[in-house]
């Protein structure tokens, strides 16, 4: 029920009335006596003013541009206030209860308006979606009469949208074509069954009827068979940069780089699995249970199936929450083969030129081999690397490791055909070093980089410039880079990354 009351603000008029009466008494002047009635007239004005109760006079409707946004997506909120009564409300104050943890980035969730009978007014503001479920509270409403003496207040429930649920739905990724039924999507140079044209040849007995070039037969009378590019599955490792050093937000109302990277990784992984590729996940900067190796990077080797998908989701959730125990709590992690905690020596030997040809990583490779042997990492508690390369992620004891060492460890998890999709905010030189190492050793790298810099400050603009330079550096290394602006929806922003899987 609305609380309607009269504020005693006009009782102030008693003082001027008393002063005028006192002076009138002193002078005996009738004009001053009559003048004393003016403040009393205002007192009556305040006492006699009225306002209808807001609970019956006001209706509210809230509309969200989307109630299932992706993380970082902008959500426009429109709150329509309608005067249902027959009385004008000259002063109406409305405050929408924005969900906790979500702050408006544009517009105001509050407003002051005067409404005639039957008139409506819209309050609009914009939020940035954060992970999880968010419920709007009751709308606080207060109406005042023209004299501001009569006041009616209440908290009303708005019709329409009352909440939003923000998460990454892999099934909603627009890049996936669910009608495609093939083993893999990577065209090869070999002709045969497939969908992409390769060549034509003379018909041979036993060729499928649906591959005969009937059009050529009708034109020329020649019987020929069309060969397509044979599709085969790619092996892709989605790598997430979740280091503490680059875990920043574009602003307090925006998701962190870890959240954005984990969302992108989960989406990429899901779409690639659906397209039939072998996909794994690696994380720099966190030691996650159920993954291979101790320290950074934590690697979940390429696999498939529902259990693997759940494991990937658990790992991504742990990255988003910056809490490894989140992954530990997932049953799919408990089912993971404990032997993956030990490195596979055969993988470390898969790239002999690495151990022989590159002196700069020789030490790192020997460290990998030593870890392979006894499960311990001799660099687990080591000091930082050379200046400028001392960017790294957490070791078991939380120290930093140079980028080239971590890149070398990562390469230990890759075979020669594995492609890498590297999700990183690119706020330091770490991803450039990793990309350089991987590209240099023949691994195709595609970089997806969420832009978490804030161009509104001088420091933010500088950071943005430096990030742009790093992106350019990575492109010059031959790695396609998807520069993801938070103004773009997540699936559309990372769609170009799928084109680069080759």
């Amino acid at each position, binding site marked *: 029920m609305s609380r309607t009351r*009269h504020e005693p603000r006009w009782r102030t008029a008693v003082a001027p*009335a008393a002063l005028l009466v006192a002076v009138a008494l002193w002078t005996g002047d*009738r*004009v*001053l006596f*009559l003048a004393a009635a003016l403040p009393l007239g205002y007192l009556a004005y305040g*006492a006699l003013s009225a306002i209808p109760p807001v609970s019956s006079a006001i209706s509210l409707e809230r509309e969200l541009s989307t109630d299932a946004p992706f993380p970082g997506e902008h959500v426009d909120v429109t709150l329509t206030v309608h005067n249902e009564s027959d009385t004008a409300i000259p*002063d109406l104050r409305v405050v929408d209860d924005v969900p906790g943890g979500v702050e408006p980035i544009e517009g105001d969730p509050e407003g002051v308006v005067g409404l005639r009978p039957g008139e409506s007014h819209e309050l609009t503001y914009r939020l940035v979606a954060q992970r999880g479920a968010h419920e709007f509270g009751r709308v606080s409403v207060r109406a005042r009469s023209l004299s501001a003496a009569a006041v009616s207040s209440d908290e009303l429930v708005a019709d329409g949208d009352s909440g939003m649920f923000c998460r990454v739905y892999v099934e909603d990724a627009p890049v996936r074509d669910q009608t495609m039924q093939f083993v893999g999507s990577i065209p090869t140079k070999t002709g045969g069954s497939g969908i992409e044209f390769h060549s034509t040849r003379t018909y041979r007995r036993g060729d499928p009827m649906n591959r005969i070039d009937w059009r050529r037969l009708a034109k020329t009378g020649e019987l020929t068979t069309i060969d397509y590019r044979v599709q085969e599955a790619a092996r892709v490792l989605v790598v997430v940069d979740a280091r503490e050093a680059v875990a920043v937000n574009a602003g307090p109302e925006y998701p962190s780089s870890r959240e954005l990277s984990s969302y992108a990784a989960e989406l990429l992984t899901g779409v690639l699995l659906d397209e039939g590729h072998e996909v794994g996940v690696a994380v720099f900067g966190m030691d996650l249970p159920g993954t291979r190796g101790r320290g950074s990077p934590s690697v979940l080797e390429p696999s498939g199936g529902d259990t693997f998908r759940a494991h990937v989701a658990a790992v991504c959730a742990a990255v988003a929450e910056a809490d490894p125990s989140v992954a530990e709590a997932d049953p799919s992690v408990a089912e993971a083969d404990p032997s993956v905690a030990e490195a596979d020596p055969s993988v470390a030997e898969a790239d002999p030129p690495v151990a022989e040809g590159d002196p700069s990583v020789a030490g790192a490779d020997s460290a990998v081999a030593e870890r392979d042997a006894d499960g311990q990492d001799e660099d687990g508690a080591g000091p930082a690397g050379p200046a400028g390369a001392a960017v790294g992620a957490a070791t078991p004891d939380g120290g930093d490791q140079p980028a080239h060492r971590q890149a070398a460890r990562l390469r230990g998890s890759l075979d020669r055909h594995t492609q890498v999709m590297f999700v990183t905010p690119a706020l330091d030189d770490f991803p450039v070093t990793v990309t350089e190492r991987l590209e240099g050793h023949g691994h195709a790298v595609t970089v997806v980089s969420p832009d978490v810099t804030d161009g509104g400050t001088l420091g933010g603009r500088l950071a943005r410039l430096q990030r742009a330079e790093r992106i350019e550096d990575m492109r010059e290394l031959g790695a396609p880079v998807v520069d993801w602006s938070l103004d773009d929806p997540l699936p559309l922003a990372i769609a170009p990354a799928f084109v680069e899987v080759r």
Partner: protein
Amino acid sequence: MAGRDQSGGRTDAVTERIPGVPNRSVVSDAVEATAVSGGVVVGTSALVVLVVGSALGVTFLAAIGFLAGGTLAVAAWLCNRRGPLAAAAGSLTVAVGVLAAAYALSRPFSDPGIPLNAGATVFSFAALLAGLGAVATVPGSLGSGQWWRTVVRAFTTAVLPGVVVAVALAEAVDGGGEVVDAAVESVETGIDAVVFPVGPNANVGGFLVLLALAGFSLAFALRVLPVANLVEKERREPVATATRRTRTWAFRVWVFTLPLGFFLTVLPAEPLHETFEDVGIEALLQAIVDVHALRATIAVLAVVCAVAASITYLVRWVAQLDGRRILGVLATTTPGGVLLVGIATVRPELVLSRLRIGPVDGFVDQAVEFMGAMPLALAVLVGLLLGTTLFLSLVTTAAATGFVPNRTAAPSVAAGGVLLVAVATGIWEGEYALLTFGAAAASLVVWDVGNYGVDVTAELAGTTSRTVELLHVAGSVAVGVGLVALALVALWASRTLAAGGGLDGPGLFGLTLFVVATVVLMSTLRG
């Protein structure tokens, strides 16, 4: 113009918030006015002062008074900003504002073109208050102790000229014993007049002044002395609460009785006591104010409290002295002091000529002979600087005691000034009914719009709507126009229908009862 804020108590309390939104609380410090409310307050105040002044033939007085008040408001704003430039500008502006205010207030006595009556004096003060409140409404520079900081800045500005005066006085005292004796005799006469008065007029007015001084001293002492710390720990809370309440009431006594006492002292004695007799309170008043023992007790209380508080304050201040900071404050406030010294040096007669009125003329000559024209002029200027800023601090004290809402002190002061314009117009020779009614209504409009634009708007931390504010203004103005029309009709009716002219004692009393009854009825209409 007095009022209470919505909390009904101390104006620093947060008034009711929008329910369910704890972060969006109202602001309890001085608040800037919105564009609409600031424009209406300044425009209406200026318009009323100038129009009424023009109609009464004192346009220049109106303009200079309003500008003087506006200058003091700007000084208050500058004195509350940080930085040496602002401090220097504030020092200069407060000196200029005080000089302009003194000039405006002295015009009714020095300008032969202005009738020498109470109306002109009240009008000049009204214009000053209206200008001060109206201009201060824009930045909100009269609330939250801001005027106190202006007073402090005025005191530091007075240091340099004060030193000059002190040196001149010391030299003069060395040289002339007669004047010193005469000064001492004057002080003794003054004390006797207040504590052991003779004559009917000084009785009541003097008693109220003594009461006001005692109230101020008591309030000051209770603020400075650590009363609660003197009792055991368990009783500190209730003692602190009682001390706070006592201090508040002591301030209220000071605020209310000082101007009333001053007013009653300057009024002609005969008509005043006739009025008291008519109303039937003459005997009662005499029974209270003629008791010398009571007066002496009040005087002793005032002196003891003042001395104790002063010593405590001084000791505390010395203990916390920061020499560099003091030097910095003094350095930045020299511009105002230099201005005063410059005026007193270059044109001392410009100041002293304002004092050469009636019996004071002879005293001025003696004082010039005693200490010199320049030091005397400088002493007068210093006295004006300190006296004017201290007197105007009644406003902030009223704000602290709840008489005037702290946040809306500026528009309340402006409204009070406009109301005094109505009073001045009413007591001016000749009848100016439309102007009187118009000014009275305008004072309510100024108060309403200023209060609404600051207090109500602060509910959403400044979020407002120009349309809504203009609607409110339109309603207030429309009611005012209607009430003025009704008042004019009532005046015509009273002239046409009433037998005889003027109001006699019983008629006055009856009318007063009628007004009181109406007020009580109105206040019970809604809760």
